[in-house]
């Protein structure tokens, strides 16, 4: 069936051109992870090599930065995933006084400029003389991720039928058993999606982290620090690996949801 107004051959080519534009910098990043560069600057193509994959963890500070990023992202995923899911559940299932202000605060947190969030949190920590470092990064990441998780879970909760929970209670299940055996399995796809979103937001965050990191260095902060000196090819390789892992997770997600729809 021909949906839409125009035949769309031109639009199709146009769409592919835009997608190509979006992908070009990624392709360049991947390509120069295979560059057999000799000096500090990884800017001129000097032949193909796999050696940077073997020497991936040669730069200790970079490796530490990547580890920091991963640990912070996992902590953010767990904490923001849990707290955000509870908010999402409450907002999707119950009507209560104060839900309006909560929605407003979350809307503000989602649409607030990152630099303003980072700056105000820094003002807060400075005023209270809280030492900046690993934990202030975790606090900030959980703070900006909660709302995204809550909105994702709320959307899932709103599509569900609460009569299943009523049935469980009628059959004698207590509140905890109802939650664990009925509610949680039903909202789990939303919780999973929200938590993965929190992980992705955390591992990529630069601005808020830059304000609240103190002496702790994450992967984006490390790259930022060496921009003027030259980016070592190991950064390209790590970027490539993160990209490929993300790609695999996303593709398997699409495949699974397709199969479920077809089943």
């Amino acid at each position, binding site marked *: 069936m021909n949906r839409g107004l125009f035949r769309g051959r031109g639009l199709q080519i*146009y769409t592919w051109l835009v997608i190509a534009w979006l992908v070009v910098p990624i392709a360049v990043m991947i390509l120069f992870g295979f560059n057999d560069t000799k000096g500090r600057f990884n800017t001129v193509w000097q032949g193909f090599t796999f050696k940077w994959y073997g020497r991936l963890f040669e730069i200790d500070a970079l490796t530490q930065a990547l580890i920091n990023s991963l640990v912070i992202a996992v902590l953010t995923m767990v904490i923001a995933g849990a707290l955000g899911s509870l908010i999402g559940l409450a907002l999707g299932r119950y009507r209560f006084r104060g839900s309006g202000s909560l929605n407003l605060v979350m809307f503000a947190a989602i649409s607030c400029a990152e630099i303003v969030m980072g700056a105000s949190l820094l003002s807060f920590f400075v005023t209270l003389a809280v030492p900046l470092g690993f934990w202030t990064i975790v606090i900030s990441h959980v703070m900006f991720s909660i709302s995204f998780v809550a909105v994702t879970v709320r959307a899932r909760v709103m599509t569900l039928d609460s009569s299943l929970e009523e049935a469980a209670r009628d059959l004698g299940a207590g509140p905890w058993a109802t939650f664990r055996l009925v509610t949680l399995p039903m909202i789990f796809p939303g919780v999973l999606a929200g938590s993965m979103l929190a992980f992705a937001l955390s591992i990529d965050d630069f601005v808020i982290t830059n304000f609240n990191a103190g002496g702790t260095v994450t992967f984006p902060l490390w790259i930022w620090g060496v921009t003027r000196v030259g980016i070592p090819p190991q*950064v390209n390789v790590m970027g490539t690996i993160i990209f490929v892992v993300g790609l695999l997770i996303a593709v398997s997600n699409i495949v699974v949801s397709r199969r479920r729809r077809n089943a």
Partner: protein
Amino acid sequence: MRTLRARLTPYALVLPGGLWLAIFFVIPTLVMLSLSLQSGNVVDGFAFTWNWHSYVDGITTYHNQIVRSLLYGLSATIIQIVIGFPVAYWIAFKGGSRKSVYLFLVLLPFLVSFVLRTISWQFLLSDNGILLGPLKSLGVLPQDFHILATPYAVIGGLSYNFLPFMILPMYVALERIDPRLLEAAQDLYASKVQTFLRVVLPLSLPGVFAGVLMTFVPASSDYVNSSVLGGTNTTMIGNVIQNQFLVNQDYPVASALSFTLMALLLVGIFVYARALGTEDVLEVAAR
């Protein structure tokens, strides 16, 4: 008993996350407001004095950067609408069973760190790099031609980095349009252009608004693109705030500038939110 418990349940669910947001988002914003009205320095400490000077000083010194940020943000947003709308339209109406694949391709940049993507552009656009180098040696471009350190590079980088945020909400709005509306318009002898202007476009506006919201705010407050792709005359307000906070540690002026930026952006956002209804924007934002 049961009703009391039922009434308290949502509060218990909301409490931990709500507290986190209150302590680390709402209160810090107020702390920053207070800090912007204090005077003093890092060494001797700060005291609250209703010191409006930070605002006056900040705005008079950096009004160029403030105006530039809003202009760059606006340019990037318009470029993104122009580039993104046809893509969103094509995926929504012609994507067929492969819609999710195309959307996924549009979202691919998000699998690479924001800083890394921007540096990749710096590399691509460098003065004698893989794009400009060959064009210069072929004589297509003059030897002293450069893109980096110009507003074009910064606006281009901003447009690139936030484009998926623009396409996604526009797609959501376009995808919701019932194709029978288009058929009805055609049955009533509307031309294709009329149908587009009077049916498709109005129905897609909520998506465009949401996209503007999601791209204008990060674009106009960004400092990564102007640091990496720009030069000394493309400095944006984000660069100033970052520098005042992290290098000069002039917290009152830095806070005053952040607050000014926030106020400018919030006014815009709440006008939008009022026009659309908060829930709608949040919903689109969540996708």
